[in-house]
């Protein structure tokens, strides 16, 4: 017999309870379970570090308080620079490159998406640029810039300190990545927005400036911050052309004292720099997701 709603009403009320084993971790039991598993994990880690012989030497090599302190302070007598002093170099290189990359990357993205005939040759150039610098390993870029430019006798361009060449190399590579981030953001703005702006008689520039860019910024910020987190870490690579920043200072300390606590201190300093940024990025991503979910209902 056919009935409108498919099945007929059941004789007995249907069973709606979950199986018992899936109820174990509900409510208060769930909290107890998560506390217990956390405690167990911490216990295992401590046991490995303090009770095993491997743990002992690991602690001595990487977490020796004496050498951690020397790493922070530096030791002028043995020509070991301070790891803390080194991170200052990383920070200013990062800050400088960040600003340059933001501006230069936007310029490249802009050139690549505008259709003004005047810019056509530049568009090709910008595309080639982005392809090249996204395709060459950064290590090579930094050698090419750091050892290549000084050989060319190009006046001021060949007379800079290694740190400046490091900045040039970082800016070249990261602008290529960031221009792609911008481009994706600019394309994420619905075409109807552009039609509406142009229909109001706004010029192509005003449309970009007042309608497209402000909307693209929101989608662009999280991936942009992700690139900046890598940029922060990659400032260590300028040591390849002779800049003594924190990782290089740590390596010198480790070679001098045969102790890895210098590396640990340098790593901790990097974390102090990057973790606020990673947390902030995740926070923005979550907030954006919540907003979109709220908009979806």
């Amino acid at each position, binding site marked *: 017999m056919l009935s409108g709603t498919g099945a007929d009403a059941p004789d007995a009320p249907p069973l709606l309870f979950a199986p018992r084993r899936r109820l174990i971790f509900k409510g208060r039991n769930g909290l107890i379970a998560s506390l217990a598993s956390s405690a167990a994990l911490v216990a295992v880690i401590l046991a490995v570090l303090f009770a095993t012989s491997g743990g002992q030497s690991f602690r001595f090599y990487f977490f020796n308080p004496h050498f951690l302190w020397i790493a922070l302070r530096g030791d002028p007598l043995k020509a070991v620079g301070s790891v803390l002093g080194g991170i200052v170099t990383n920070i200013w290189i990062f800050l400088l490159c960040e600003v340059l990359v933001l501006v230069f990357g936007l310029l490249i993205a802009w050139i690549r998406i505008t259709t003004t005939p005047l810019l056509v040759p530049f568009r090709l150039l910008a595309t080639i640029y982005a392809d090249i610098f996204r395709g060459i390993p950064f290590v090579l870029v930094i050698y090419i810039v750091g050892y290549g430019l000084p050989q060319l006798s190009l006046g001021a361009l060949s007379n800079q300190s290694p740190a400046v060449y490091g900045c040039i190399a970082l800016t070249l590579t990261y602008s290529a990545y960031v221009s792609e981030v911008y481009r994706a953001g600019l394309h994420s703005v619905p075409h*109807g*927005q552009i*039609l*509406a*702006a*142009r*229909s*109001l*008689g*706004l*010029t192509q520039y*005003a449309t970009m400036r*007042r*309608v497209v860019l*402000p*909307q693209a910024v*929101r989608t662009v910020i999280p991936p942009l911050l992700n690139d900046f987190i890598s940029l922060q870490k990659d400032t260590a690579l300028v040591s390849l052309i002779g800049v003594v920043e924190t990782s290089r200072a740590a390596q010198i300390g480790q070679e001098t004292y045969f102790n890895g606590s210098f590396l640990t201190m340098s790593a901790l300093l990097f974390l102090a720099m990057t973790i606020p940024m990673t947390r902030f990025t995740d926070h923005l991503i979550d907030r954006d997701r919540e907003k979109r979910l709220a*908009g979806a209902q």
Partner: protein
Amino acid sequence: MNNEVLKMSSVIKRFAHHEVLRDVSLTLHRHEVVCLIGASGSGKSTLLRCANLLETIDGGDIELFGQSLLDPRVDPDLVRRHMGTVFQSFNLFPHLSVLENIALGPVRALKRPLHEVREEAMALLTRIGLQGRAAEFPDRLSGGQQQRVAIVRSLAMRPSLLLLDEVTSALDPTLVGEVLDLLTDLAKSGTTMLIATHEMNFARDVAHQVAFLDNGVLVEKGPPDQVFERPQHDATRVFLERVR
């Protein structure tokens, strides 16, 4: 001639080999309301997009106040400032408040002073009863309210004519009325409008001229009584039968 606002003569538009507008001629006079009707895909949107130069035409001519828009010296941005365009999907700017949406064109395209534009924008909002929502973002408004804001946004440019493309099609049926009322109001105050619509009753009440497009051909044009009651062509008759 001097009260002709927009004149399209023998306009041809192709997408690849598909001829979407075939020899379409249509004139819009000052204070005149022309409704474009026709089946989906007949070319109504394309015609409006050609009129405000969002599409380039493949033949014929378009004149605004007697000046050909095909003249290479014509700046499309300046042309569009004379033609307000309202879309089916309101396309309000989500990052700007309702008031800023309305003020953007006058301030950034016409370079008029902000304080003067704000006053005018508030007056427009008052006209549609949304003066209390000026500071809110568009996504807080209902569809009907958003579309009415979109209409006054184009009015703020003080255009010589309005092009409206199925402005009620994306709306919940309960919200269609408020938008059509605003258009009726505008028609009464003498706004020149070219309206693509599926709302036949509205077209009958408001239009001075009704133009029927069939497969890119302007088959019939005349006062609403004539087109709706005594259509001259079979195609028109068939279309009207179907939508009734």
